[in-house]
């Protein structure tokens, strides 16, 4: 049995080692591929071990450098964090394997593998850390890796997208840093468990609400919610398929994770004020996202807008704040990561086999590859929320939770957006799979059918992720049960605080 220190360190140790070794062997492409895959598998393995240790509700804590809790940096793994790390590991391996099909996409220059591991390091660190400033640092590691990955090809549209992506994200992180500074000025501590202890005793509760809204804006920009999402549709569709798949899986979800974490642990005091704001944000995010998707004909742009629309559902947990709703949000995040990444991977296949990402220039894929059509329908219908796929259960729980809490507009918007999602998925199906192939698409199809190795590399992660979707769909019970318990655990702050400080300890003196 491994101890908590080891369990919590390994998930960041593997990507860190991956970066170091990639930098050492930066001129050797094969070595880099092997390192990338090995580090991703290591991350997945350590995430499984971590999950095995916390799935029963225990909260693991490690104090780096053995410094005591409010002063040193702690890593905390509760059920939510462990689930996110596990799904990160799954995506790391799946997309990592897909990326091996490379040579054309991604343009595999010396930095791809290094930045890929950097992204994983930042994401994993952000999920596990229990220190708000440390969270900022992990955000930055994740960001700079994503900047590099986005601009990796150096094409004109990527550079254009990079300018907007970098500017808007830098503003958001700087805003996050300023919010951290204000929170520190108010509470005199950066440890999230310590902040959670101190915040209710702060005299000026109005300031706490102000800071809460500042955090909501900073994380909201990361999560691509309604008025702050413009960087996402400006950038995502320019990157190559594996890169945009890992972005779609992880980047916005870190923002959602940070919102859920801070608003369940820290800012739960004034839900009467922030609740309606978040409800409005959620509704507008869902509706604008899905309408934006309806207007586009590039698969990647359609899917990018759907990321935004789905983020809205994940905010239900913050609006309603019952164990059912928070659990539903957690289930939604997990389901969405698998499904959305899989759709982007499929978009890469459509491009490779059908000749284009543009729906008007491709087609006829069902005639030549009926199995690919089935593979597409699994995540596509799951995204739209049709039973019995994973999307149905996650949509069902969040909408039921909002109906229970009498948020009828929220629930209605959720149901309507589900229908419109189906419209976009049917559009992709009709254009890419159903209609006859245009003239120019046959050459791409021939080269695709000739290259057996690439087909195997690109299709195996898609099949694996489709199996995950089906598993969540047909054997929903353990997943729903786990999410509900994780949601209940999130709503009970004392579990987190006691794990960090030990149950008996009194409120430590605030040391500004």
């Amino acid at each position, binding site marked *: 049995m491994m*101890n908590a220190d080891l369990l919590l*360190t390994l998930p960041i140790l593997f990507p*860190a080692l991956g970066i*170091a070794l990639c930098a*050492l062997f930066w*001129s050797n492409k094969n070595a880099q591929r092997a390192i990338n895959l090995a580090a991703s598998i290591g991350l997945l393995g350590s995430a499984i071990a971590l999950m095995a240790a916390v799935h029963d509700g225990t909260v693991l804590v*490690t104090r780096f450098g*053995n410094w005591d809790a409010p002063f040193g940096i702690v890593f905390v793994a509760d059920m939510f964090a462990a689930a996110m790390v596990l799904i990160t590991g799954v995506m790391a391996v799946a997309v990592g394997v897909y990326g091996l099909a490379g040579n054309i996409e991604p343009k595999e220059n*010396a930095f791809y593998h290094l930045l890929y591991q950097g992204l994983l390091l930042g994401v994993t660190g952000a999920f596990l850390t229990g220190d708000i400033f440390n969270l900022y640092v992990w955000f930055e590691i994740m960001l700079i890796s994503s900047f590099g990955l986005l601009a990796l090809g150096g094409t004109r549209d990527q550079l254009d997208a990079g300018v907007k992506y970098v500017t808007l994200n830098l503003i958001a992180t700087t805003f996050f840093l300023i919010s951290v500074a204000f929170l520190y000025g108010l509470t005199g501590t950066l440890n999230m468990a310590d902040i959670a202890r101190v915040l209710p005793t702060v005299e000026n509760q109005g300031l706490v609400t102000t800071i809460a809204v500042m955090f909501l804006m900073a994380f909201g920009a990361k999560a691509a919610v309604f008025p702050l999402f413009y960087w996402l549709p400006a950038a995502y569709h320019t990157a190559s398929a594996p890169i945009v798949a890992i972005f779609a899986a992880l980047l916005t979800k870190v923002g959602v994770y940070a919102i859920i974490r801070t608003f369940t642990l820290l800012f739960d005091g004034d839900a009467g004020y922030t609740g309606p704001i978040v409800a409005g944000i959620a509704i507008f995010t869902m509706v604008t996202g899905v309408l934006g998707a309806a207007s586009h004909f590039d698969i990647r742009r359609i899917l990018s807008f759907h990321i935004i629309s789905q983020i809205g559902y994940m905010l239900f947990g913050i609006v309603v704040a019952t164990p059912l709703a928070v659990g539903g949000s957690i289930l939604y995040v997990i389901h969405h990561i698998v499904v959305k990444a899989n759709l982007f991977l499929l978009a890469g296949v459509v491009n490779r086999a059908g000749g284009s990402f543009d729906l008007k220039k491709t087609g006829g894929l069902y005639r030549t590859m009926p199995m690919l059509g089935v593979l597409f329908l699994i995540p596509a219908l799951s995204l739209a929320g049709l039973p019995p796929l994973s999307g149905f259960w996650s949509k069902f729980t969040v909408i039921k939770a909002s109906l229970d809490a009498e948020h009828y507009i929220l629930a209605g918007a959720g149901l309507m957006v589900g229908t419109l999602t189906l419209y976009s998925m049917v559009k992709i199906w009709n254009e890419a799979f159903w209609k006859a192939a245009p003239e120019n698409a046959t050459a791409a199809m021939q080269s695709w059918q000739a290259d057996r190795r690439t087909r195997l590399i690109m299709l195996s992660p898609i099949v694996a992720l489709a199996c995950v979707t089906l598993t969540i769909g047909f054997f929903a019970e353990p997943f729903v049960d786990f999410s509900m318990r994780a949601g209940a655990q999130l709503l009970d702050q004392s579990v987190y605080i006691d794990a960090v400080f030990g149950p008996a300890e009194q409120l430590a003196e605030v040391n500004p």
Partner: protein
Amino acid sequence: MSSLILTTTSRLILPAALIFSIYVLLRGHNEPGGGFIGGLIAAAGIAVHAIPRGRTGLIALLRVWPKALIGAGMLLGIAAGIPALLLAEPFLTQQWPFASLPIGTTLVFDVGVYLVVIGSVLTFLSYYLEN
């Protein structure tokens, strides 16, 4: 950019900067200093050496690509945390194997930071020297 003055003086500046950087690195144990600032000083010295001599001069001096320095530094930084894990203590807990000497994993970590800083500054520099 070749300049006789810079080429000549850099012969003096480089060793001085390197020695001073190592002094600052070791001093960081208990007083202001450490791997980060030491690395910056060393990188400044190397940059003064490299600017008049170009990218080939930089690589000839370092013998390795600057990116490899980053990798080596990160490996040292990770390695500094491993002994604590093996002793079932939290990652990066300081270990002092010699009772009388102040040499421990902290120094290893600082040397790692030193190398990462040199490597990243010189990586940037080598791109500018290329153009």
